[in-house]
Structures are given as C-alpha cells and as structure tokens.
C-alpha cells in the first residue's frame, strides 16, 4: 500500500533545507514506518530532486518521523526558479512511497 493509506505529512522550508514530517493515524503503525520508511526509501523517492544529505529524526511520543533534507530547494524560496519554491508539494510525494 501507499504510505498515504496509513500516514499524513507536512513539508516546510528554511533556506535551502526542506523538512518533511510524517505521522501515522494509528499509533500501532509507528513501528512499521520506523522500519520501512528509511532514509534509503526516502532518498529513492526524492533523488535527484533533493541533492544534499537526508537525516531522519524519530518522534516516538508523536508517532512520527522528521526528514531533514539539505540542498533540497534549488536555492530556497527566495532564490529558486521552481514552480513550488517552498517544496510545499513534497509532503505529497512522500505519501506516494510504498510500504
């Protein structure tokens, strides 16, 4: 199934850094995303859109994961010529990952 079936997300930006946080609807699914939604899985979905390092932070009390992506926004909201310079749509791309 798609991650979207069990989780929701939001992406934000600071300069060239994008963060995409993901939370499960059912806390019982938290272990599953910890195991399956690895940095490698997110890299597979976001390369080469995201060029820099991707770091994952676990948020066990919130049943969520936060992915911090460097060099992700082609210069950031004020510099990028992308259609979506904030990377607001990144939250939808992560939910397309198969789990």
């Amino acid at each position, binding site marked *: 199934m798609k991650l979207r079936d069990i989780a929701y997300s*939001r992406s934000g930006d600071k300069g060239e850094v994008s963060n995409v946080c993901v939370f499960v609807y059912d806390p019982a699914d938290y272990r599953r995303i910890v195991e399956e939604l690895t940095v490698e899985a997110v890299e597979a979905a976001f390369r080469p859109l995201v060029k820099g390092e991707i770091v994952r932070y676990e*948020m066990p*009390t919130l049943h969520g994961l936060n992915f911090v992506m460097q060099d992700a926004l082609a210069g950031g*909201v004020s510099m990028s*010529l992308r259609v979506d310079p904030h990377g607001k749509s990144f939250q939808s791309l992560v939910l397309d990952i198969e789990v």
Partner: protein
Amino acid sequence: MNDIVKIGCGSAYASDWLEPAKALADSGLVDYLAFDCLAERTLALAQIRKLADPSTGQDLRLARIMEDFAGFLGSNRTIVGNFGAANPDAAAADVVAGARKAGLDGLRVGVIRGDDVLKQVLDLDVALPERGVTAGQVRDRIVSAHAYIGAEPVVELLGEGARFVLGGRIADPSLFVGPICHELGWDLDDWASVGVATVAGHLLECGIHVTGANFADPPLRVLPALHDLAAPFAQVTSDRRVIVGKLDGTGGGVTEATVKTQLGYEVNDPAAYLTPDVTADFSALQVREIGPDRVEVTGAGGQAAPERLKVLVGLDLGFDVVGEVSYGGPGCVERARLAADVMRERFAPFAEGIDELRVDLLGVDALFEGRLQRGYPAEVRLRLAVRCADCDTATAVAEHVEFLYFAVAGGGGVTKSMRPAIGVTPAYLDRDTVRLETEVVTA
C-alpha cells in the same frame, strides 16, 4: 503574576487575511494578539521600499489594524508584532496616528530598534555559507541584513506598560514568548519554561496552519468549512501546559493531527529547535485532545539559547522573467519540449545576461522533476523561468516570450511576467554585535 495567559495569532505574514483575527479579538477569548508580518523575503522588499521613500518600509496594514482592533486595545488588551519591518519608527508613527484617530489617546507604544545589522554584516565581512562567499565579496548586491531577535525587549516593554509592542525582525515564536513569559513571570533564562512558551509560539505563529490550513486531503483527512478557517489561540498555564483552541462556529478544526503537523513544520532536529530565546526540545511532547477543538500539548523542554543570532541577508539577484503557454492533445509533450528548445535559440543573443534558465512542463515534471510518472497527459503547460542579471536583458527576454505563440503548433494562452529577483541567505552574528534599544512613545 498570573497562572494562565490567553494569547492568539493575529497574522502569519505580511498580507495575511485579518478577518479571523478580528473575530478572535472580538470574542474576548484572548488578552494578547501576536502578529507575525514577515516571511523570509518581506524585509528585503521593505528595505527596497524604504530606499525609494525613507518614510516607509513598515507593515502596510497598520491604519486598518488600528481601526479593526481599536476595541481590543480599548479594553485593556495588548498587541505585539514585527510590524516595523525595515522601519520600526514609521510603524510606531502609524500606530500613534491610528490610536489618536480611534480615541485611544494615551496608548503606550513600545518600539524595538537594532535588528537592522547591515553595517555589522559588512564591517565584519561575515560568511554567507549557502552562497559560499563573504558579505564583502557580494557587497554591491546586498540590500538588507536583519538579525532574528528574541523576546527580551518585548518583555521589557510590556513591563513598562506598553500595550502595543512592535519591532523589526522579532522571531516568529518570540512574539508569543514575550507576552507568555511576562504574564506567567517566567525568567528568560528558565530554559525549560521558555521551551514551553516556544512550543506555544511555534503552534500559533503560522495562524490557520494549526486550525486546518495546508491539511485537507480527501477522503482521508477532511475538516468542515475550510473557507472559514479560524485564527488559533492558546492558553498557557504556570504548570507548563499549552492548550490550543479556536473560536466556536468557525471552520476547520484543532485536532491531534492538525497540531502534530504544525509541531513538525519547519523543524529540523526536534530536540534542538533553535530560536533567539532558547534551544527548545520538542522530542518528548505529548499531544492529547481534551475537548472539541481543544488540544493539550505538554512535555516541552529547553536548553540555553544559541550563542549566535541568525541573520537574513537580502541580495539583489537581478530580474526574473516567467513565460507560460499551453499545449493539448496528441504530441503535446513533444511540442512543449521543442518550443522550449526554440526559445533557447531566441534567447541566445542575450546569453551573457542570463544567469539561469529553467524549463518545466506543468502537469508532467514541474513539482517533482520527473520523480513521479503517470502516463501521457491530455494537456501540458510549458513554463520558462529566466533569471537575468540586469533589467535590459530581462526586458529583451520578456519581449521574446511572445514568440511562444509561433514556435510550434497549437500554443495557447501565453502569459508573461517580469519582477525584481530578491533573494535572502543566512548569516550568523555574535549576540554582542547586535545592540537593541527600546523606547515607549505615548499616543
């Protein structure tokens, strides 16, 4: 000193819609409203306005705000905001004028100056790490430099009886941290408490983001009346609980999910959320729905504030020209790609003045650069974005965009735009190089 403080969000950026905040002000549910007026680029644009006219550079909504929120201020309630943008004194003058017009004579207006650090950035030739240069190397391109400043001057002014506090680049959460710490008597070096206040500020600073904006995804996530999203408020208690809510009868919702998504928004390491006030710790938060549209957040912590202050440096990057055209039916993708190639040839004579040319096919690869593929589209829109080093190049490029009607078959709906390209990039300054001053003026 109180056991509870009630604070709401008035605005989340410079052109935010004010109706939800007005409804919250009129409800009597909050004693403070904090207005964030500055997105990353807003201050650089405000400095450019100020260059053209030294009497401006402040938030442009103050006359209206003083009318709409006169009743709120008149009932002994308080507004805090970074309305100053590039010109805090001009903002204070607007507030004083608006107060007198509204019959609020005697209103004490607190002004914070000193976030404008252009001189320090140039004198110290600070590094611009995301650009790989120092400030001195791009001196002629720098249009602004503002340090993110914290809650300390806000608390000081509230202590002096100011009921309208404004400054320039007061950090978004600090607009809330100031009133919360002032009311609850929390010391600004009580890091755990400042961490709690910062969680409240982070939840409220984006306004409707915590009441259902940027959230709905049917059929999985749906909230009622999305056209009428509420301005949020929080009650923060002396035993370090944060309860987020919204006005009854408004749209959207305050749920465990809306709160969690905002908690994670624009956060890097959840154990070290950096603000001018504190290194806040969001890593052990508990989120609990305690009633309809009421969510309690507990468990925030904090460590000492970062030693250096973040600065955003505004850079003049020239001009951006964007042209678009639509194609449909069989072969639309191939025609769009050919048209892009044709346009590159048309632009070739100006190549020296073109710093970057970006081609997107909206509907195909614009958002994810080809990471998602979903079959052949019924129609596409070609978008050419051109960063030009100077106005003459941009003007020439914009003229040629019209050729999108003729490059290949069936191109319709050409649009074009041209605007100055102003970028912002981070830098860092030691705290002792940023000298703030405060003053109370009376309407």
